[in-house]
C-alpha cells in the first residue's frame, strides 16, 4: 500500500561543487556536525489548503522536524536550536546570509520551500556549506500530501549521503512483533512502522502467536512464524493485499525464516523428531531443498548478500556456535571460537561482517565479527538482548532488549534499541507497545 505512491525526484540545479564539510562515520562521533535545519517556507495559500488535508498547521515546519530528528538520532549531526535562527525561512532559502548562520556556529544549513498545486505536494530543499558560503545540493520532490513524512526521510537520506559519502537509512521501515499482556500469556502481533517510530500499522490481530518477521528485498512481502491453529509454521504475508500462506508442506515445525538476497527463496529450519535442519523453498515452483543434515540443532540461517554463502547457528560442537557454509550446504566451517555461546548470526548488507548475539557468564551481548570469525567486537552488554538486524547501509544495528522481572513479578519490558557499528550512539527506538524481533527494510526509494 505504501509503495504505490509515485515519488518524483529531480535535481533542481545540476551542481557539483566541492564540499568542505565531511562527516566521518567510521568512528564513534563525539563531535557531531552543527547543522541548522531551517523550517521549510510555505506560502499562505498552500498552507491553508494543506492544513485542511493534513490537519497540520505548518507542514513546512513539520517536515523540517522530521529531518532534524533523523539527523540528531544518527549521532553524526547536532541540529541547532531554531530559536537562535536570525533569517526567515523564505529568505534563507532564496539567499542565506552566511554570516548569520556562522554566528550561531552552524557549519551546514538546510533550507526549503513547500508548495501545493494540482493536488500535489512539492517540496524543494537546499543544503548549504556555511563556511564556504556555497550551495552544495538542491533537490525537489513531488508527491501526494499524505507522504509528507517520507519526504522528510528522503531529504535526510540525501543529506546523509552527500555529507558522509554513504547511503542513508531513513526512508525505511521496521517490521517487528508488538507485545502486550502478562509475561506468561503474551499477546503478540506483527507490526510495521517507519524507522522513526511513526505510522505504526498492525498486520495481525493477536489471535495466534507470531514471531520473527523478516522483509523480502523489495519490502512487499514478509516471512514469519505463526502458531495459527497451534501448528508453528513459516508463513508468507503480502503486506499490500494482506494475503497469507503457509510456506511448504512440512510434517512438523518450520521456523527461523529469511529470504534469499534475490527474494526467490525462503531459507528456514524444519524440526522433526527432535532434530532441526536447514531447508530452502523456492517460492515460484515450491521446490524444497535440504541444506544441512546433522543430528544437532541447525537454525537461524542468513545468506551473504551475494547469495553464495549461508551463516547459521548450530550446537554440533555441543554448544551454540556460528558456522558458515556454501549455499548448497557444503564446506561447513565453524567461525565463532570465543568464550560463551553464540546465536542469531546475520550477514551484513556490505558483506564483510556477521552480527550475532552472545551469551557469556550470564550476560547477553550484541557483537560483530568478520566472516572468517576474526576481529570479534562486542558492541553492547545487557541482562538480555538478541536478534540484531542491519540498517540497509550496514552502519546501524537494531535489536530487542528485555529487562529483568523482579521478585514481585514486576519490571519486565521488551523494547527495541539501536546502536551504531562503532559501539556508540545506543538509542531506544520508540514503539507504541512493547516490541521484539525487529527487522529493518531496505531503502524504500532507491
Amino acid at each position: 500500500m505504501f509503495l504505490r505512491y509515485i515519488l518524483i525526484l529531480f535535481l533542481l540545479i545540476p551542481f557539483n561543487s566541492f564540499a568542505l564539510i565531511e562527516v566521518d562515520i567510521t568512528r564513534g562521533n563525539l563531535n557531531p556536525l552543527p547543522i541548522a535545519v531551517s523550517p521549510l517556507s510555505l506560502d499562505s495559500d498552500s498552507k491553508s489548503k494543506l492544513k485542511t488535508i493534513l490537519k497540520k498547521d505548518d507542514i513546512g515546519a513539520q517536515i523540517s522536524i522530521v529531518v532534524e530528528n533523523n539527523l540528531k538520532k544518527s549521532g553524526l549531526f547536532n541540529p541547532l536550536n531554531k530559536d537562535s535562527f536570525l533569517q526567515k525561512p523564505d529568505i534563507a532559502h532564496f539567499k542565506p546570509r552566511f554570516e548569520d548562520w556562522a554566528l550561531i556556529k552552524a557549519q551546514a544549513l538546510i533550507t526549503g520551500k513547500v508548495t501545493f498545486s494540482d493536488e500535489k505536494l512539492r517540496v524543494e530543499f537546499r543544503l548549504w556549506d556555511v563556511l564556504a558560503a556555497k550551495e552544495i545540493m538542491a533537490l525537489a520532490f513531488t508527491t501526494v500530501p499524505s507522504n509528507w513524512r517520507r519526504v522528510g526521510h528522503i531529504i535526510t537520506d540525501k543529506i546523509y549521503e552527500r555529507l558522509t559519502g554513504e547511503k542513508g537509512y531513513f526512508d525505511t521501515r521496521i517490521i517487528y512483533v508488538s507485545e502486550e499482556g502478562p509475561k506468561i500469556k503474551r499477546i503478540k502481533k506483527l507490526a510495521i512502522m517507519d524507522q522513526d517510530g511513526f505510522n505504526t500499522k498492525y498486520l495481525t490481530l493477536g489471535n495466534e502467536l507470531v514471531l520473527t518477521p523478516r522483509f523480502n528485498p523489495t519490502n512487499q512481502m514478509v516471512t514469519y512464524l505463526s502458531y495459527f491453529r497451534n501448528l508453528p509454521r513459516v508463513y508468507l504475508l503480502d503486506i499490500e493485499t494482506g494475503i497469507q500462506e503457509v510456506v511448504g508442506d512440512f510434517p512438523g515445525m518450520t521456523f527461523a525464516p529469511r529470504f534469499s538476497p534475490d527474494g526467490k527463496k525462503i531459507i528456514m529450519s524444519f524440526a522433526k523428531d527432535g532434530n532441526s535442519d536447514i531447508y530452502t523453498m523456492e517460492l515460484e515452483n515450491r521446490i524444497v531443498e535440504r541444506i544441512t543434515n546433522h543430528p544437532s540443532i541447525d537454525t537461524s540461517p542468513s545468506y551473504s548478500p551475494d547469495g553464495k554463502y549461508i551463516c547459521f547457528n548450530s550446537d554440533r560442537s555441543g554448544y551454540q556456535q556460528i558456522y558458515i557454509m556454501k549455499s548448497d550446504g557444503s564446506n561447513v566451517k565453524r567461525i565463532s571460537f570465543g568464550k560463551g555461546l553464540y546465536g542469531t548470526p546475520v550477514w551484513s548488507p556490505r558483506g564483510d561482517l556477521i552480527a550475532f548475539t552472545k551469551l557469556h557468564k550470564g550476560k547477553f551481548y550484541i557483537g560483530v565479527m568478520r566472516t572468517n570469525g576474526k576481529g570479534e567486537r562486542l558492541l553492547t552488554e545487557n541482562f538480555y538482548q538478541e536478534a540484531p538486524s542491519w540498517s540497509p547501509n550496514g552502519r546501524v544495528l537494531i535489536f530487542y532488549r528485555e529487562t529483568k522481572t523482579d521478585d514481585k513479578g514486576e519490571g519486565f519490558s521488551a523494547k527495541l534499541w539501536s546502536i551504531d557499528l562503532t559501539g556508540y550512539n545506543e538509542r531506544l527506538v520508540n514503539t507504541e507497545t512493547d516490541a521484539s524481533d525487529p527487522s529493518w527494510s531496505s531503502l524504500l526509494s532507491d
Partner: protein
Amino acid sequence: MNLNKIFKNALLLALACLALSACAKKVSTGQMQGDVYTGTDTVEYLASGVPDRVFFATNESVLTTKSRETLRKQAAWLRKNSNINIVIEGHADERGTREYNLALGERRANAAKDYLMTYGISADRISVISYGKERPVDSGSNPLSWSKNRRSVSVKAN
C-alpha cells in the same frame, strides 16, 4: 527458636549441595538438583499420582532419573487409557535466543515422546509442539523460575 536445629539443617543442605556439581553457588531453596527443578509448585496431574511434566537442565534435553520415573507413570496411565491421545509441549527458559529455544523445546518434547514410545505408547497417540521460551509458567528472572520453565508437559489432546 531452635538454633541448633536450623544450623543442622543448613549443614545438611550444604553437604547436599557439595555433592552436586552446579548447585553450590546458585541454589539454596532445595527445589533444584543441579539446575533441574525438583519441586512440585507448578506440576499438574493427568490422573492421581501421574505428574504432567518433567524438567531439564540448562541447554539440555537429557531425561533425569526422576523424569524417567514420571514418564513411566505417564506411559502406564496411557496404556490403561488407550482412547486418550496427548500433546507434549516442549519449553525453554528466557535465557536463550528465540530461534534456538524453539529447536530446543522441540528436542525436549521429543525426548519425552521417545521415552514414552519405548514403554509401548504408539507414536500416533503423541504429537509434539515446541513453544520455545514463549509460554513460561513462572515469570521470574531467577534460576529457580528458569528451572520451572525448562520443561516438557504432557497435555490431553482429546
